[in-house]
């Protein structure tokens, strides 16, 4: 490579380049550089948007035949979409605690929707604050126990009504510890307004905002404006679904799946609309180029697959999530799909890494910044999935190892293990446990599961 030619061909004669060249000359001469007196490049702002029960494939950008999500697609087109993103526990509270702490449920302690959040847990927001960021948590907290005493927050907007689930309409909020009536009728719009306000107030700081939506959790209620967007459209339902699956076998939803699914999609499109409002705010303030936007769901959702609804189980529909990162200037080929397996516990270490903050050793996840910057980065080969019983749901406690090819599940109680070959059977319909192909791969999977249970590398 001809460095000289490169220098002249790639570098325009700008004031900055002249300064750099001068500084280099001064440095070479052992004199103080004038660049040391120049302000450092501002740390990137970080906006994390979390939705509820958003399944990985309910986006127009990944080929869903009905739903329209132009703003989520925009984040993906301008960034990187992780096609193999998962949660380590497919349940709201444990998953949310994992996003915040970078830890597995067995470490942060929120094992289900009943075990309380421990205030000694350290969130990445606390570490961001210590590093000089302005921090905000806006939206659904939904973790058991008392209202949390979160450290390192400049703004904390959440709600506790209906067991922490909040309400789609007229949801009373707690704003920095003060009970506050809702200003907007619909919760997604209300939270978006708070987010935009926070971004505007802190546009000159480096900020880190955690925007956690209620949508699109049950009871899947869009506002009047979006209620009918998918009326009359033929929805793709899985072959195992029938009208009554949602009302049987402990799956008690007060309606049929098809109707609920239509509302679910409408809720997501409405959420997408409001995500667009936040993206526009970043553009309007001129800070989009220095703001990393990450979008994820807290777990997936069944719509009749395996005769199930809700989430919790170890099947792909439940554990797989959307996970998109827009990092201006850092994603070499925007719009790419990354195949590496990433997890909700990776969020905290990744954000810390992006901000140049050391990742604490007690975080179970790992920074996926290398995967974001370089598509050839080798991802993890396996990871641990865990589910702890959650009264009163009919899901047995289980642990699973998920590799790029297989999934092996062991249950607590009387159920036999299950094993699936995801390459040959992506819908997980043929349990290979006890079959010749299953016997062949079982020892390695069992060994890997044991390693992961003992805290082995992921």
């Amino acid at each position: 490579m001809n460095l000289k030619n490169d220098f002249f061909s790639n570098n325009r004669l700008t004031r900055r380049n002249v300064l750099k060249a001068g500084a280099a000359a001064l440095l070479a001469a052992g004199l103080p550089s004038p660049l040391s007196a120049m302000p450092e490049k501002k740390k990137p702002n970080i906006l994390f948007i979390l939705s509820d029960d958003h399944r990985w494939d309910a986006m127009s950008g990944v080929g869903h035949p009905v739903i329209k999500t132009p703003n989520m697609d925009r984040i993906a087109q301008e960034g990187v979409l992780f096609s193999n993103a998962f949660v380590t526990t497919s349940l709201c509270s444990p998953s949310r605690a994992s996003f915040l702490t970078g830890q597995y449920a067995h470490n942060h302690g929120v094992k289900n929707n009943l075990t309380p959040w421990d205030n000694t847990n350290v969130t990445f927001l606390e570490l961001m604050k210590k590093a000089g960021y302005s921090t905000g948590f806006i939206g659904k907290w939904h973790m058991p126990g008392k209202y949390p005493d979160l450290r390192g927050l400049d703004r904390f907007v959440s709600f506790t009504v209906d067991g922490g689930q909040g309400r789609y309409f007229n949801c009373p909020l707690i704003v920095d510890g003060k009970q506050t009536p809702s200003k907007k009728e619909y919760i997604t719009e209300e939270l978006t307004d708070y987010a935009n306000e926070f971004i505007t107030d802190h546009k000159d700081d480096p900020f880190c905002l955690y925007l956690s939506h209620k949508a699109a959790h049950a009871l899947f209620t869009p506002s009047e404006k979006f209620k009918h967007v998918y009326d009359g459209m033929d929805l793709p339902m899985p072959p195992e679904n029938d009208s009554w699956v949602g009302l049987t076998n402990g799956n008690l939803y007060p309606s049929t799946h098809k109707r609920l699914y239509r509302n679910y999609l409408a809720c997501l499109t409405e959420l997408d609309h409001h995500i667009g409002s936040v993206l526009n705010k970043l553009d309007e303030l001129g800070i989009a180029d220095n703001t990393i936007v990450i979008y994820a769901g807290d777990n997936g959702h069944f719509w009749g697959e395996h005769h199930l609804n809700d989430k919790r189980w170890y099947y792909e529909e439940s554990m797989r999530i959307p996970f998109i990162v827009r990092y201006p200037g850092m994603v070499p080929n925007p719009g790419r799909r990354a195949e590496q397996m990433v997890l909700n516990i990776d969020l905290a270490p990744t954000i810390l890494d992006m901000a140049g903050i050391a990742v604490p050793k007690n975080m179970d996840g790992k920074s996926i910044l290398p995967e974001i910057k370089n598509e050839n980065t080798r991802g993890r080969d396996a990871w641990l999935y865990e589910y702890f019983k959650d009264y009163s749901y009919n899901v047995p406690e289980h642990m699973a190892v998920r590799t790029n090819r297989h999934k092996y599940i062991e249950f607590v109680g009387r159920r036999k293990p299950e094993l699936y070959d995801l390459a040959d059977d992506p819908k997980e319909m043929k349990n290979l446990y006890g079959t010749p192909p299953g016997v062949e791969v079982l020892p390695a999977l069992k060994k890997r599961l044991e390693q992961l249970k003992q805290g082995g590398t992921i």
Partner: protein
Amino acid sequence: MKPNPAADNSRRSLLLRYVIPSGMGVLAFFVLFETYYLSWYVENRILHFILTDVVGAIYGFYLLFHVLILYPIFYFRGAALHERILGTFVVTSCWLIKEVLRMTEFYSIAESVFYLLMPVQIGIILLAIGFMAACEMICRKIEKKKKALDIRVVTPVPVAFVLLAISGSAFILRGGGLNYFFNFYDLYKIVFL
């Protein structure tokens, strides 16, 4: 509610007035239940959907409204009040037992029984009680007209149960069910955690 006064001259044997109707009620429950779940494994798509959608619908309606069929049978076969109540409640009991057994795979016996306090189970019980009370008064009315008996059709106890069922169902369906649902979990935490 008093024992059926019209029953004396039309009272059937225990087998006919109690055992067979309750047995038929239970049998119908299990046939519908099993058919619905077995239909999941029917490979033929058309047959699959006919079985799931039709049988599923009948199964749901039967669970909710079986009292309207069973109670009059007991009444007009001369079953005593306790026989009418127990005989009719047998289907609801099957559902509740099934639910408790389902829960025992994952939870202790106490937690499984506690599950009966869920709004869905309470709603089903309330509905059964309300329908029984309404049926009692309707059957009295029919009996009174048919046999010109001097009996009071509307009495305080069945009226109270009808009102309880209506108000309870309305509470559950009109959003109170969600509050009850969260209170149920708070109670669970107090008792079991």
